[in-house]
Structures are given as C-alpha cells and as structure tokens.
C-alpha cells in the first residue's frame, strides 16, 4: 500500500512505511524471528530489490507491537546469542489479511491505469 496521504512532500521512508509494516507482518507469518533475521529475510525474499533500511526496522517493530499486531519475547538466536524475538498475534494475522487484500486491490488498480492506452476512432 502506497501512502500518498495528505502530506505534500512525502519522504522516501514515509512512502515505504505502510508497505514495511505489511512486509514485516508477512515475514512473521512464517514464524517468530528477531530484527536481524526479519531485515535479512525481506531483502532475501525480494531478491534484494527491497533493501530495508535496518535502522528504520526497529521503530516499525515498536509501532506494530504498540498496536498489538505483534508480540515480543527474549530468546536465544541460532548462534547462541540473546535476541528479541517477535511473533504475529491473532490481531496481527487479521491485519495482515486485510492489508494483503487491500494491497492486491491497489496493485490491480495501478496496473489498470498503467496498461497501454487503446486507440479510439
């Protein structure tokens, strides 16, 4: 979902914001993960097209947790280090479904606009 809201001059991170939320939720749908993993998974699964700015990940995680879409706990990482893990909550799962359907609508709409113009007359 591209947020082209009221602001007249959106900064790149702001454009990404709504999408980033969805991407995080989608990543967590697979299973609990810590911040580092999430960042890498998003980069990896988008074939490195979407480079998540790792710094902006944490405020996003904080926001999502604040809304109750994800929950966090301290765990031990694969290489035996303490890390904060996130998992999707039930509300988060519902939110993800809603976001995904909205995203699909937007993509379809944008594609409709972008298809080649048919000659008339």
């Amino acid at each position, binding site marked *: 979902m591209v947020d082209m809201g009221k602001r007249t001059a959106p900064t790149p991170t702001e454009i990404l914001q709504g999408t980033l939320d969805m991407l995080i939720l989608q990543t967590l749908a697979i299973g609990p993960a*810590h911040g580092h993993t999430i960042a890498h998974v998003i980069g990896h699964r988008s074939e490195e097209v979407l480079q998540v700015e*790792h710094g902006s990940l944490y*405020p996003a995680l*904080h926001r999502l947790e604040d809304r109750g879409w994800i929950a966090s706990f301290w765990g031990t*990482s694969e290489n035996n280090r303490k890390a904060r893990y996130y998992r999707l909550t039930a509300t988060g799962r519902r939110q993800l479904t809603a976001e995904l359907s909205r995203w699909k609508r937007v993509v379809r709409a944008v594609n409709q606009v972008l298809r080649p113009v048919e000659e008339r007359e």
Partner: protein
Amino acid sequence: MNWRRFLRRDWWDAERAREIEAYLDIETSENIARGMTPADAVTAARRKLGNPALIREDIYRMNTVQWIDSTYQDLRHGLRLLRLNPGFFAVAGLSLVLGIGANTAIFQLLDAVRLRMLPVAHPEQLAELKIAKNDHCCSGMFAARRPNFTYPQWQQIRDHQQSFASVFAWGDRRFNLAGNGEVQYAEGLWVTGEFFQTLGVTPLVGRLIGSDDDRPGCGSPGAVISHAFWQKRFGGDPQVTEKKILLEGRHFPVLGVTPASFSGVEVGRNFDVAVPACAEPLIDSEDSYIPQRDHWWLAIMGRLKPGFSVDQATAQVAAMSPAVFESTVPPKYRPEEVKYYAAYKLSAVPAGSGVSSLRGDYEKPLYLLLAIAGLVLVIACANLANLMLARASTRQREIAVRLAIGAGRGRLIRQMLAESLLLAAAGVVGGVVVSQVLSRYLVSFLNLYLDLHTDWRILAFTAATGVLTCILFGLYPAFYATRIAPADAMKTTGRGLTSNREKFGFRRVLVVSQVSLSLVLLAGALLFVRSLRNLVTLDTGFRENGLLIANVDISRSNYNVERRAAYFRDLLGTVRHAPGVDDVATAAIVPVSGSGWNHTIEILDGPKQGNIVPWFNRITPSYFKTMDTPLLAGRMFDNRDTLASPEVAIVNEEFRKKYLGGANPLGKEFRLVVGPGEPQHVYQIVGLVRNSKYQSLRDNFVPIVFVAADQEKDPGFGVNMIVRSSAPLGSLMPELKRAILSVNPVASIEFKVFKTTLRESILRERLMAILSGFFGFLAAILATAGLYGVISYMVARRRNEIGIRVALGANRANILRLVLREAGVLLVAGLVIGTGLSIAAAQTAGSLVYGLQPSDPVTIELAVALLAVVALAASLIPALRASRLNPMAALREE
C-alpha cells in the same frame, strides 16, 4: 497514544537499546564469519544499522506525548533560569504575590458580600418583600437592621399572598445573656414559624422552630441556637436540648441547633439565638411591638411557588397592597400620613444571595478597591515586562545562535513563556496565601461575620488573574526577543553605539504608562487619606476624648414611672460622685451612634413655613458641660425645669439659621405636630448652643432641638449616661460599675468608649484610606523602580557613547543633564497623561470622599509633586553613575 508506554518510556528505551545492541552483535559475528577483521566487522554493522541514538530517539518519541515532554523541559529550563537570578525572582515574585494577593482578597470579600448564594436549598427561589421606594415611607418607631414591616402588616401579607409557597418574617435583636451587671449580648433573631421550614434548613441537633411553636401568646416556647453559639456557649454538648438559656432574664429551653453552614439570611451577620416572634411580648412586656401598627421591626422573605417569577410575584403583591395597608393604618397618623400610607405598594426582589445592608455601604468601595488593586497588578506587570525585556536583550546572542542552528521560533517563545508561567504560578500560590491573611484582616477590621471559604469563583478569578498577568508581562518580551534576524543579532550584539530606538520604544511606553497609572493611584490614595483626615479633624462641636458611655438598663426591676424617674436621679447623683468622674449627663441620643429621633414642629407666631422636621435629643442639665459644647446665648437646663414647669428647649445655631432666618431664638415658641389623641407639647426656647454632629460625622450640621430629661413624663427603662473623666477610661469602668450596681443591683450595664464609637462610624473611610494608601504607595514604588530600571538600562546601553562624549570633553554636568533629560521626558509624559486619567477617574470616588471634591486640584498637585520628586531621585542614581564614567574604561570594554 498509550499512557502505559508513556509512563514506562525510559524502561522501553533501555529495552530497545539492548535489542539494537543484540542486532549489532549478530551482524558483527556474521561479518566476521564472512571473513572481515573484527574492527571492520563492527564498523560495517554500524553502517548497516545507521545511528542507534537516532533510532532510539525515534522510538522514544513514539512513546512520549510531545507537548507534555517539551513543556516539562521548558519548565525545567525556566526554573533553572530563575534559580540563576534569585534577585530577579524575588522582586518579580514579590510584586506578583502582592498584586494577586490583594486582588484575590478584595474579590473574596466582594464574593462573600455580593455574589454568593445562601447555603440553603434552591436559593434562587427566594425573594424578599419590600415596600416600593417612595418619598413618604415610613414613620413610626424603627428597630432592627431591616425594619421593613410591622407585625400587623406581616399578618395581612401572610394571609393574602398567593405567589409564594410560603413566606416568613424575621427581625434581629440583641439578647442579654447575663443575669445582672455588665451585659453580655447574643445576636438574636425573632423568627416566625415558617422561617426554617421555608428556607429548608434541617436541624443538626434536636429540632427547629416550626409553625406550632409560633402561636400568639406562646409564652416561652424555646430557642434554636446556631452551630457557632452551640460550640462557644455549650462546648458542642449533644445533650444541649435538655438545657435552658437565659435571654433578657427569661429562661428558654434549647430546642435544637442549626447546621454550621447556616448563618441566617443576612450576609455579614451571624445569629446566636433564634426565638419565635410570638415570644416577643414576654421579653418586651408592655412595650411589645407585636400589636403596634407603627413599630417597624420585621423583614419578609418567601419561597416562590414553582413556575412563579419574581416579576409575577411583584405584580401579585402590588395588587394586594391596598388590602394590606388599608387594614393596618396606624391610629396615631395624621390624615395626610394616612393618605400616603394607604398608597404604599409592595414589591418582590430576588434574595437568593441573601439580604444585606452591607451592600449599600461596601459594594462600591469594594469595586473601587478591586479596580485599584487591578491597576497595581497592571503596574507590577509592566515592571515585570520591562525586566523580562532587559533579560531578553542580554540573552539576544544566545537566542540568535539557537535560531541560527534551527530552533523553532514557536518553541523559543514557549520556552520564554514558561519562565513567565512559573513566575505567575508562584505569584498565584503566594497570592492565595496573602489573600487569606488579608481578607481575614479586612473582615475583622470591618467587624463582620463573613463566610470566607474559597469557592470556585475565587479560584477561577485567581487563576484568570495569574494567566492574564503571565500574558501581560511575558508574551511581548518573548515575541520581541525572538523577532531578531539571527545574522544581525550576531553581528551587532554589543557593537552599536546607541541601541535600536524602535526596540527601546516599547520600554518607554511601559514606563510612561506605569508613571501615569501610579499617579492615578497615588492621587486616589491622597484623596482618601485627606478625606479621612477631614473626618478625624473636623469640628464635631464637642470634645470626644475622655468620654465613656454607660448604657444602663433596669427593665428587670419592674419599677413604675415615678420610681424610674427617681431612680435615674439617684443614679446620676451617685455616679457624679464616683471616683474619677468629672462630669456626667444622660442623653436619649448619643451623638454619632447612628440613632436619631425627629419630629415635625410648627413655630408659633412665625411666618408659615413648609415642613419643619428638626432632630431631637433629651438631655440632663450637665450635658453641654460634659460634651464641652459651648452655650452661645440664654441658659442651660437647671432645677427650675420640672414636670410642673412649662416645657423648655435649647436649639443649635443650625436651627436658628434654617428655621428662624438667623433671628434671636430666645423666647420663641414651637409646638409638636401630633396625631389625633396624642398629648400636645409646646416648648419655649431658652438657650442657643454651638452646632454639633448628630447622627454621623459625615452629615453636615443639622438643626437640633434639645429638651429636658427632667420634663419627661414617661421615662423608659434604659438610659445612656455620658461620663467625662480625666482618668484612664479602662480603670474608670469598674468604679462606675460598682457605683451603678450600688443603686440597683439588677441593672445591666454596657460600656462603650465614645472615641471608639466615632472611630467605628468612619470605618469605611478608614478602610479606603488604609487600603488605597497602601496600594498607592506600592504603585509609586513600582513605577519608580520601573523608571530606575529603564534609565539604568539606557545608561548601560549607551556606555560607549557616553564614554566618547566624555573623551571629547563633555563634563559631568553635561552627562547628568543628558540622562536626566531622558528620565524627565518619560516622567513628564507619564504625569501629564496621569493627571488627565486622575481627573477622569476621580468621579468614581464620588460620594466616598468627605470634605473635598473628588477632582480636588490640591490632591492631584500633591500626588504629581510626590511622584516627580521620588522618580527623579531614582533616576539620579544611574545619572550620577553615568557622569562618573571613566571614558577609557568604557571605550576599552568593547
């Protein structure tokens, strides 16, 4: 936003810091695994993450409420600034505390006297009944503070009114609680049976007076006491209903106690005891007011029926007025008086905030004092604004730097306002404390009973005052300080030869308005002080020092008329020989006590004149000697004047001037104009005395007729003895008491120092003089400080210029003149404007000043001179400092 997050934001911050730390940890170890050196691995991880501090700040901001946090910061910053300048804080805080405190105190009084509703159920439904104002109301005997109705009228009104769910009447009366000897008074109320029920008062202990208690001929049905009296007299005894209370020598069972919140319906007065009106004949026996149609002693109030307005009630009671008055005509009235009487109209006025005679006396002075205190606060604010401006200009460089590196102007203004807000808050807190002390002092000064609890109106007033002052003194300096273009400020700070005139202009305006306003207050203060002085020093016609009034009452002795006359002669003789007594006399009317007695007379063998109504007094022969009022012609009363001899009178100069056209009064005769069936009296004038004050010091001399006490056919049960003594009056009282009780052991006595009576009669003038004097003094100090500040500031800003002038050959006198001219211009501008304002404002003082015009030129000139001298002296200090400037030091400094 999430309050839990907000409150735990520091915990979250630590949590996120750990998390970010963990990220770096993992990334670094992965980097090392990819083959980087440890140092490179850390750097690369950091680069990938970005600035951890910024991330944390991002998250922190999400957790916080922006304005709370920044306000908190601003306040802390403000507090730190104030702590750095304790001198400024003290001066500013003190002037605000005094200003806000004075305003609140006076508002509190005004609130208690004027605005507050009675603490009873639905006070807005209460209305008072009155006889509509007319030129011929009313004549007869008056007792109580609100002598609006007679008992027969009350009966008619009670039986005929239709607009009120119920009505009640009450009258006030002091009851002597002591058995004999020196009297001890309780504030009493006569109440009709409907009183408590109509007001909706419920008893705290026992029961209250009801309709069944107030039946004609009820004897001694019992009394209800107030909470305060219960505490004071009975120590809050819960068994009080089994006790009795002695009122004027009669025992009354205590029925119950009213709640603490209830203090009657008269604002400014509390009551101790309430007694059913039907018990009045028991106490006043043969002088009972109840059957009398010309004894005015009751006030009437009622609770409107649901849906009835005060206007509707007025219409209804006006319509029933003829029935009420035609059936209650006093038999002694002359025909023309009867005509006027029958035409009286009743009307209803809202009484939800109670009734009070205080309002007439104190409403205007209090509003005036509130205005004065308000002006003082404005002047204090102007001073503060000036100080804040000065501080802002010393911080110009700091502000310019902050603006230059991107601080928002709004944020800077808020930060500067935070400092003002703190000051205002300190002022409000201190002001509330000061106001409590001040308002209690004022109430005890005025000898009132006022409920001064702090209600929402007072809190709102004080808070509004605080906010307003904050805006007044803080807003402009904050705007002004941040209006600078940073580059200019950085370039010019401390460099200019003279400071920017435009920016300096506002401070001049402030000083000019301060000077002009304080002139108004100073002139007002002088006006009231001079008015008081006029009253204190005026020619009263008697010598008031060394006089003691002893009111002796023997109503408990059941003496008949002859016995009473003999008793009073004995009493006078005994007291005359008591130790310490120089002279003694009796008088029916003690001068300046507020009482009076007048009567229509007709001068025999004289030209027909309009209504002649002089004032009367009944005195014993030594009265003029005791009072030290000189006899101008004829003779004093003496032992020739007896019940058997023709009636004689002594008149004063005003009587001669007004009624006799200045002719010799000796030998002239006049008669009292009396109603049908009353005894005829014809008096021959035998003496002429100097004018003296009668009812009040404020009144001009009035025509007075003195008649002889020895020719009184029906002396009452009480007498006012006036005793002159050169001994201290405190030590005289026990001697007098012994002498009086030796003649009759059951007499009750009340002492009063005459001088005290006089002082109490000009309470209002003293209040105005003291308070306006204090405020005027404060205003002058504030304005002087303001002028001093501005001139000092100007000298400081122009050090360089002055240094150059001195270096170029200006001498000390030149520099002195330069600075004083600056001060003089401001002062003269302020004084000119202030004089205009004073003349305009003087009209509001109107009737409150005695013996001079409100716009009295001498007063204003005096105020101008006073302020000019003080202000010039204050600006002389910085001027001298400037003239002693060492040019080399001044020039080198920059």
